[in-house]
C-alpha cells in the first residue's frame, strides 16, 4: 500500500486489520517530510517522540484486537497557532520562538483522543496575519504545485503539508479566509466551521470574534471526520456553542437533488480572473446537473467587507497582542534598562512588519476621537453584512462562490503592497464576519496547472449541507 496518499479510513483500517502499523505510517510520513519539506517549508517543528509514543499506543490497541477510534494511527499536522503541551508553539513569530506551552489546545487534544498521531507544527503567517505565508518570521512556504508560488495563507503550511502528502489531514485556523484560501491555492479541501462550533481553547488569539479552527484534507469525507472529532461544547471556551454535533459523515451521502444554491453577482465582478470564473461556473453547472436549483441572490454590502474586516480584526488584534510584554513567556530584548524600554524594544524586535502594521491600525481605530468613525462604524456594517446573508438564506440552502479571485500568485508579487494582499481575502472575509460556515473544494485548474477552489457557504451550524454539496461535487467531478 502507498503509505502517504491514504484517506483517514484507509489508514485507520490498515492499522486495525494489521496490514500496516501506526508506527510505519508515522515513519513513512517523516521520510516524506525529510525528502520534500526542504523545498516546501511547511513544517516549523517536528515532534517525533510524541508521535511515536502515540503510534505505539495505537499499535498496542490494534494488537489486542480492540476496536480503534476514528483517527487511529492517522498522521496529522497542526498549525503552529495551536498550543501543544511540551512542543514549541511559535505562531510563526520571533516573539514566541522559544515558547513551550504547558497545556494542549482542545482541538488538538480531541484529535489525539481519537487516535491521531501529531507529526509536527506547521508554518503560518505570523499570528495568522497574512494571505501568502510570506509573513512567517522563520521562512516562507512554497506551493507544492509550483514552488515559485505562494501556498496561500495564513494556514499555508497546513495546506502544503496535506497537498504534498506529508500529512493525511491538518488543522488550520481561519479569521478572514486562512483555511479556505490556502486550501484553494494548494488544491485541497478546507473547512471553516460556524463560529462557536469548535472550541478555541489553546488557540493563540488573533481576533477573538473572528477566529475559527477547522480541517484541511484531501477529501471532503476526511474533513467531515475531523470536524466530527473536534466539534462540540468545551467548558474551557465560553464561546463554544452548546449544541449537539451531527454525524457529518453519515450525512454526506444524502442526495443533493432539490437543494437551492444561491449565486450572488457581487462575487463574480471586477477583479475575478477569467479562468477562475469559468471553473466556478462549470462547477455550478455540475451541481445543477445533480439536481440542485440555482437561485440568484443579492449580498449588496459585499464591497464593504474588506474595510470592515480590517478594522475589526486589527482592533481586536491590537488588544490581544498587548499580552506580549517580555515578562511571562515572550521574547525579551537584551540589555534593557527600564520597564517601558523593555516593553517597546521587546515588541519592536519580536514582531514582524505586518503584525506591527495591524497593531498600529487597530490601535488607531480604537483610539480616542476615532472609535466611532472606525471601530463602531465597522461593527454596524458587520450587522449589515450579516443581514445580507440572513436574507439570502431565507431563499437558499447554500451559496456558491469562488474561494479566491485568482489562483496562487508568485512569491514576492504582493508582499510590498499590503492593500493588494488584503484584497486576496475578498470572497472569504464575509463568512468570518457573519459567523457562517464555508468550505473550499477543488474545482479544476488554470492552464498553468494551478488549482482553483469552489467556495460553498452555509447557514449557521449547517456544516452538514455544505459538506454534502462539496462531497457530491467532488464525487461527480
Amino acid at each position: 500500500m502507498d503509505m502517504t496518499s491514504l484517506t483517514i479510513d484507509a489508514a485507520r483500517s490498515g492499522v486495525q486489520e494489521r496490514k500496516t502499523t501506526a508506527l510505519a505510517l508515522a515513519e513513512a510520513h517523516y521520510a516524506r517530510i525529510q525528502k520534500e519539506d526542504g523545498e516546501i517549508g511547511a513544517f516549523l517543528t517536528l515532534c517525533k517522540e510524541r508521535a511515536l509514543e502515540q503510534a505505539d499506543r495505537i499499535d498496542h490497541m490494534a494488537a489486542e484486537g480492540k476496536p480503534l477510534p476514528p483517527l487511529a494511527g492517522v498522521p496529522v499536522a497542526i498549525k503552529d497557532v495551536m498550543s501543544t503541551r511540551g512542543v514549541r508553539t511559535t505562531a510563526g513569530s520571533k516573539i514566541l520562538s522559544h515558547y513551550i506551552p504547558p497545556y494542549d489546545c482542545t482541538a488538538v487534544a480531541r484529535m489525539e483522543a481519537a487516535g491521531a498521531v501529531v507529526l509536527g507544527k506547521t508554518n503560518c503567517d505570523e499570528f495568522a496575519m497574512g494571505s501568502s505565508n510570506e509573513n512567517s518570521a522563520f521562512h516562507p512556504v512554497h506551493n507544492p504545485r509550483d514552488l515559485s508560488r505562494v501556498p496561500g495563507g495564513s494556514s499555508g503550511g497546513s495546506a502544503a503539508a496535506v497537498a504534498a502528502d506529508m500529512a493525511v489531514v491538518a488543522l488550520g485556523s481561519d479569521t478572514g479566509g486562512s483555511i479556505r484560501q490556502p486550501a484553494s491555492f494548494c488544491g485541497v479541501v478546507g473547512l471553516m466551521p460556524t463560529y462557536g462550533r469548535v472550541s478555541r481553547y489553546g488557540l493563540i488569539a488573533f481576533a477573538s470574534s473572528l477566529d475559527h479552527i477547522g480541517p484541511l484534507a484531501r477529501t471532503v469525507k476526511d474533513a467531515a471526520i475531523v470536524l466530527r472529532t473536534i466539534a462540540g461544547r468545551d467548558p474551557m471556551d465560553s464561546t463554544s456553542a452548546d449544541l449537539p454535533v451531527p454525524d457529518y459523515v453519515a450525512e454526506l451521502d444524502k442526495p443533493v437533488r432539490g437543494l437551492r444554491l444561491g449565486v450572488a453577482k457581487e462575487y463574480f465582478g471586477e477583479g475575478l480572473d477569467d479562468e477562475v470564473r469559468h471553473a466556478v461556473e462549470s462547477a455550478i453547472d455540475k451541481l445543477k446537473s445533480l439536481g440542485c436549483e440555482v437561485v440568484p441572490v443579492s449580498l449588496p454590502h459585499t464591497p464593504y467587507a474588506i474595510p470592515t474586516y480590517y478594522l475589526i480584526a486589527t482592533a481586536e488584534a491590537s488588544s490581544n497582542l498587548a499580552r506580549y510584554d517580555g515578562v511571562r513567556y515572550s521574547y525579551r530584548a537584551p540589555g534593557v534598562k527600564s520597564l517601558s524600554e523593555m516593553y517597546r524594544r521587546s515588541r519592536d524586535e519580536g514582531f514582524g512588519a505586518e503584525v506591527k502594521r495591524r497593531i498600529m491600525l487597530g490601535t488607531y481605530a480604537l483610539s480616542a476621537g476615532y472609535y466611532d468613525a472606525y471601530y463602531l462604524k465597522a461593527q454596524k456594517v458587520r450587522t449589515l453584512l450579516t443581514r445580507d446573508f440572513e436574507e439570502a438564506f431565507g431563499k437558499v440552502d447554500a451559496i456558491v462562490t469562488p474561494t479566491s479571485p485568482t489562483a496562487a500568485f508568485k512569491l514576492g508579487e504582493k508582499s510590498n503592497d499590503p492593500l493588494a494582499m488584503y484584497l486576496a481575502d475578498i470572497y472569504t472575509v464575509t463568512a468570518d464576519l457573519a459567523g457562517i460556515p464555508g468550505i473550499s473544494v477543488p474545482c479544476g485548474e488554470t492552464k498553468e496547472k494551478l488549482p482553483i477552489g469552489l467556495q460553498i457557504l452555509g447557514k449557521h451550524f449547517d456544516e452538514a449541507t455544505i459538506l454534502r454539496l462539496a462531497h457530491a461535487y467532488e464525487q461527480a467531478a
Partner: protein
Amino acid sequence: MKVTEKDVAYVADLANLELSGEERGGMLRDLNSILDYIERLEELDTANVEPMAQVSDRHGVDESKQGSERFAYASREDVPEGLRKSLSQESALENAPDADGTFFRVPKVIER
C-alpha cells in the same frame, strides 16, 4: 492625508512599539493607503443599525432573557479550583525570559 507623523508617534506610543525612523515612514504611507480604502464605509447610512460585537449573540442564546442572562449556557458554577488546576509555580515560570524561581524578574519600574 488622514494620518500624520505625529499620529504615528502617538499611536506607536499607545501600542508600546518603538518603530525606527524608516518604519515610521512606511507606516505613515501604509496606514494612509489603507484608511483611504476604508473611507468607503462612509457611503453607508448606519444611523439606525445596531453594532455587532460578536456572532454568539445571534445564535444559541435564550431570547426571552435580558442582558447577560441570555448567555446562560456559557456560564458555570463558581468553584474554587476552577475547571483545571492552576499552573504550578514552576510551570508558570518555565517560559519566562528572567525569573528567580519565585517571581518574574523585570528591570526597575520606578525611575527617578
